[in-house]
Structure formats: C-alpha cells, structure tokens
C-alpha cells in the first residue's frame, strides 16, 4: 500500500487535554437554569397540597431540591473530568460521557466544514464549541464544547491549514 507513514504516531492512550476550567462553571449555570422550573413546579405542588394534610410538608420539594443540588454541585465537575480531547498532527480525538463513554477520532482529511459556536453563556465564560462536520452518517458532526475562545479559533485555523495543505 502506498501510505505515507504517519508523522506522529498516534498515541491512543496518551494524556487527554483538559477543557477550559470555565466549562465546568458554564455546565453548573446551565444545570441551575434547568433545575429552576422543576423547583418552582415542586413548590407549586407543595403549596397546592398544603391544606390537605395528606403528607408532611417538604415531601415533594425536599427530594427535588436534593437532586437539584447534587446535579448542580457534583455532576458538572464529574462531567468536566470525563471530557477531554487530543489534537494530533492529522486527527482530533474527542472523549466524552460519564456512564456511556464515547471516544471518537476524526481525521482532518475527512472534515467537510468547521463551526465555532458560542452561546450567550459561552460568551460570558469566554469559551466556545468547535464542531467538525464529516460526510459519514454516523458522527456527521462531532462537537467539542468548552474550549477557550482563542484556542477554538486557533484549532479551527490549524485544521483548515491542514485541509488546504492536503488539497494542494
């Protein structure tokens, strides 16, 4: 086979690069925003059943609050720790997932287009999501959230430069 040897041998289990520390904060804020409607709903239910005397107060709102606190305080850090990426000379490896681990490698030679996306929350924390689009049906787009804004743009330029080099 006429393969040029890969310049940097891809170290499969090499150290993953951590995401921007602000990403865990962003996750926390997002979890808080998601939890608020549930908390409000629980409080409304609580209020509705107050007069009935069916069960002691706090039976509904208490567990909801506990779960919400766990989701806000514990989970974002664990999720942050579970995520990582590895930028190779010709490929990007994205690892994610707490329970269901997924470990994806996208070769730059198969990237169709690249997105850098920032939501309002991302802008506040100075982070961005880098998305690589491929032609495959599975993994048609591979997103890498929680990169520093500058880094995301730099990575995009790197990948673009690689594609340009290959096509010329």
């Amino acid at each position, binding site marked *: 086979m006429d393969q040029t040897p890969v310049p940097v041998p*891809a170290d499969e289990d090499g150290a993953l690069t951590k995401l921007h520390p602000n990403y865990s904060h962003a996750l926390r804020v997002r979890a808080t925003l998601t939890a608020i409607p549930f908390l409000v709903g629980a409080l409304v239910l609580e209020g509705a059943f107050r007069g009935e005397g069916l069960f002691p107060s706090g039976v509904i709102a208490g567990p909801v609050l506990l779960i919400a606190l766990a989701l806000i305080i514990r989970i974002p850090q664990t999720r942050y720790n579970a995520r990582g990426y590895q930028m190779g000379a*010709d490929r990007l490896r994205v690892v994610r997932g707490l329970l269901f681990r997924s470990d994806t490698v996208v070769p730059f030679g198969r990237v169709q287009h690249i997105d850098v996306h920032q939501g309002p929350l991302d802008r506040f924390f100075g982070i961005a999501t880098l998305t690589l689009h491929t032609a495959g*049906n*599975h*993994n048609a787009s591979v997103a890498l959230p929680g990169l520093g804004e500058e880094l995301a743009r730099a990575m995009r330029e790197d990948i673009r430069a690689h594609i340009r080099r290959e096509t010329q």
Partner: protein
Amino acid sequence: MSDPRNTAPLSVIIGALGAIRSAVLPAIAIAFSGIGGEGRYLVAIGVGVAATVIGVAISYANWRRLTYTISETDIRVESGVLSRAARSVPFERIQDVSLEAKPLPRLLGLVSVKFETGAGGADDLALEYLTKGEGEALRQLVRERREDEAAAASAADPALPARPAAEDEGDVLFAMGPGRLLTFGLFEFSLAVFAVLGGVLQYVDNVTSVDIWDVDLWYGWLKEQGSTVATLGPYAQALGAVAGLVGLLVVGSATGVVRTFLRDWGFTLTRSARGFRRQRGLFTRTDVVMPVHRVQGLVIGTGLLRYRFGWRSLSFVSLAQDAESESHVVAPFAQMDEIAPIVRAAGFRLPGDATAWRRASTRHRSDKAVLDSAFFLAATIPVAIFAPPGLFLIPLGLAVLAVGANLYAWEFRRHAIDDRQVYASHGFLSPTQSIATRLKLHSVEIRQGPLARLRGYATVHLGLAGGSFAMHGVPIAEARALRAAVMETITATDFSRLDAPAANPAPDQAFSSAQPGFSENFLAT
C-alpha cells in the same frame, strides 16, 4: 442546447388529471352532504368544474413557466408563476440520474428525470415530465459532460477501459425471470393484506352504520358460526382449523408474490460504461444509474428462512437515496455465486477463506443474554404469584428462548479487517454482512456503556457516507488496534482525492492476488 427549454407538453395533461382527481372528492362530498338543499348537485358540479378549470390553468401556467437550461457546466431549472426559483446543479455534483415512470405518465410515454446530488430527497432536482427519448438523451448528456470533466482522470484510470460514451447497453450482471420472482415472492410472505382489510373495514365503519368495533355483533356472528362448526364433530373442527391455517399461508404467500411481481418485474442490473444501471417495476418502472466510484459500501442481507436455502440480497450504500431505504438494492434475491460478480464489478472483495474473522467478546455474549432474559425473568415472579398456576412457565420459557437466541446470535457477530476493507456481520437468526472500504470511512468512534467498560468490550462505529457501520462487542484492546489501523489508512488520503484514480486501485489487479487477512499495519499495532 443552451436555450431554456420546456418540459413535455403532455405533462400539462397529467397535472390536469391530478387537478380533476382532487376536485372529484370535494364535489362528491358536497353532493352527499346536506349543504345547499335541492340545488346541491348543481353546486357540486359547479365546484368540481371550477376546481378542474383552476387546476388545469395552474398546471398550464406552471408548465409554461418551468424551463430548464443545459449549459456547459450545469443544469439550471427555473420555475414558479408568481415567485420565481432558479436552481443550478453543476454536472460534477450529480451523483445519479434516475428515470421513473409511474403508470399514468408511462401510458403517455413520459418519464420523470431525477438528478440525485446527495443533498437528500426533497432537495434533489427533478424534471417532471419529459418524453422517454428526451429523458434518455438528457441522461446520456449528463454522463458525457461528466466524462468530459473527468476526462483527464479517466484516461489514466485502468479500472475503466475507455469505452465510447454512447455505449448504453452494458453487460447484464443480474436479472430475475418470472420463475425467480415467484420463488422470491414466496419468501416475501406477508400478512399486510389483513392490515389493508382492517383499514377497509374501518372505512366501512365510517361510511355505513355497521359498527365493526361492536363486540356483541362479532360474538353473535362467531357463536352462530361456532354452533354450526360444533355440530360437525371434532374431526371436522380440526380440519377447519387446518384449512384456516392453510388459507392464511396461501393469502400471505399470494400477497408476497403479487408485491414482488409489482416491484421487481423485469429486474435487470447492467454494468455500463460509467456505472451500474438498474431497471425494475411492472407498473411503475424505475431506471437508476449508480456510478461505480460512488458506492461506499455493501450490505449483504438475508432472512430467517431464505438463509437456510442460501438466498441473499445485495445492496449498495451510497450518498444518493433509493425510494424509501438508505441503500440501493442491486440484487434482491440471489445466490452467493450470483452476488460475487456484482461485488467484483463494484470494486469490492467478498470475505473469503483468507479473511480473519474475529468473534465478539464472549463477555458481551453473556451480558447480552443475561440482560435480554432479565425482563422475562422479572415478569415470571409476579406471574407465578398472581396468575393461575402453570402460567409462569410462559415468561420462563421466553427467558430461556432469549438466552438461546442470544447464544445463537453470537455465532453471527463477527468482524474482520484486511488491507483494504472492513467487514462486520450480525443478526439474530441469520447473518447480515456489511463491507466497507477503509479508505472511504470518515471517523471512528469507540463507544462503551457502563457494563461494557466494566467487562472490557466496546462498540466500534465507523462513519460511512450514506449508511452506518458498526462492530459490536469488540474487546477493547482490539477496538483500539482496529481504530489505529483504519485511521492510518484514512489520514493517508485527503477527502478531495477519494474519487481520484490513485485512490481507487483497479479491481482486477486487487482481486487476482490473494491478500493476507491482516495488513502489516494492523499486525504491528
């Protein structure tokens, strides 16, 4: 050739017929409803005529305002009466050109020409309708223009000997005669006709006053019939039951045969200068051309029963979509020795003796068997407590069946990799095989659930354009090695060069030499 042209004038008639058809129902509805009292028939006729006239006028205006232009580099279609839309498709982006003739256009000698660009169903460019000759000419033209585009490339391509572009009839690779269709139809056993009957009954229910959901009505009817049957004695009853089963079998098989004849009548697959050409259909005749280099992968499917007789089907995975499925069926019902030449013509290699098949992890097998039977086992306990005695044997039996089926499914769960291709096989009671070129993969993902991580196996998903490719239950170390090997192949060639001749080695030379099952790269990892 570069002037704007109209589609066939006869397409106005088809549009008009469509308008009449949609005008008939409201007219009937008015005629049978209470609106308008005595004069309602007049109103109905008036509405029908008005709808028809408007429909015909719109159809005519649409026809007048729809033009297509064939220029040096692209096809442009401009359409719209009030708002104008212009779409242009460059020749090199057209994947397939397919001709489809539904029964009505076919009577008038018209076809609809569809240019598939891989953008997916609705976004594809379609011209409705052209005369059959015009359609063929247009397809030929697109093909020639494409050849011109790729002239430099194809001159150096040993895989495609420079044949005259006008050559239309290639070698017939696969065809199905009435006898084969009959056999195929018998395996396509389907009870869909009962669903249709159910629908019809529902309709009857709405139109007439017979309430088909009235249990008493059916019960009374059954009792009446039952008492008739009861007088016949046990032998006659058994005979009746057998006759019912036979009847079900006959109806199911007949449905299958009829559907198969309608869909696959005159099935021919030819290999022409630029690609594969498939023609089929009794009333709706379709004619699809698939360029060879657009074939991303193969799927060899089979069925529970037909596998026992060695019947299989072959489909091409490509970016263009077939009618309703994601891949193009090129041989719906064939023996392996008929499939082999098609696979070879597509530039692929069937797994052979040299293919080093790896089985899925036995831990994956055990976990799946336990998980799948757990549901039935859990159901056994309440059934044993609450249901009449003996009934708990049913979920228990199902649990045993689930274990057995899983153990058997493991037989088919295999994967392999060689220097050019990846293979995967899976299935419950019969194997479905997928084959893809290593070079034409787009990403590799290793996915593990909590149990899989604990037990050290993973699912490998490979990004395939136009389809999916997964290997299940691969031991984690093997999965990593596999990914490394595939990545090495992918990164060696950029996407833009995938279709270049260098990236597509000539099938002939690749096939003649017996390749070792594993590449050096893979062994080295």
